[in-house]
């Protein structure tokens, strides 16, 4: 039995699972409050743009989005299998391509800010 290449994806899954566990609920509250027009002074275009313009801000945004994408992608791969779909290789290509696309877009957008 050859050694698996799963570690690379699982490592990202585990890192992403930890990061999303800590930060995503609060982030969702932020977007939810924005959606419900609560407290608009705290998260203005200027303040968010400034954060994303800051080199550390870029790094943080990229890091959080990167691990969130690859965590969800890997878990989705396993979940699709749990729902009975057996075409694992194809599913892996689809989910990791999605994560890759998200990663690329994030890079592009961050470089434009």
């Amino acid at each position, binding site marked *: 039995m050859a050694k698996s290449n799963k570690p690379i994806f699982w490592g990202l899954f585990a890192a992403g699972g930890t990061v999303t566990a*800590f930060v995503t609920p609060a982030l969702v509250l932020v*977007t939810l409050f924005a959606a419900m027009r609560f407290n608009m002074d705290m998260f203005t275009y200027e303040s968010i743009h400034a954060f994303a313009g800051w080199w550390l801000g870029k790094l943080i945004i990229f890091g959080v*989005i990167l691990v969130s994408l690859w965590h969800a992608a890997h878990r989705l791969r396993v979940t699709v299998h749990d729902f009975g779909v*057996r075409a694992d290789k194809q599913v892996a290509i689809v989910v990791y391509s999605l994560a890759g696309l998200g990663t690329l877009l994030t890079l592009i*957008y961050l470089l434009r800010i």
Partner: protein
Amino acid sequence: MNSKPYVREVSKTTWFLSHPRYKRYMAREVTCIFIFAYTFLLIWGLGALANGQEAFGAFVQALGSPLGVLFNVVVLIATVYHSMSWFDVTPQAMPIQMGEEFVAGNIIVNAHYGAWAVVSLIILFWGM
């Protein structure tokens, strides 16, 4: 040796319906769909941010649509369930040995919940 052992088939699509613990597992796993979708929402917002104040304003408007609010509420439930289920199993995956004994599981879990609260407050009140 028995020449005719009987193999019981398990449905690969409905197996998780047979026991509450499997249903809980699947509920935990499908949170990834919502986190995946939410992350793409954030990327969309990032793109809008890069395109300027008007584009960003349109993004926030879209967020405020009934679908946008509903989506955020559903994601909130999913992500909280993810966080709680993740913290609860951390002691199993990363046991900490201090001296001879292992740190009690609930101490590790409570520390995670504490850190979760602190990080959340930092994010929520970042602007202040």
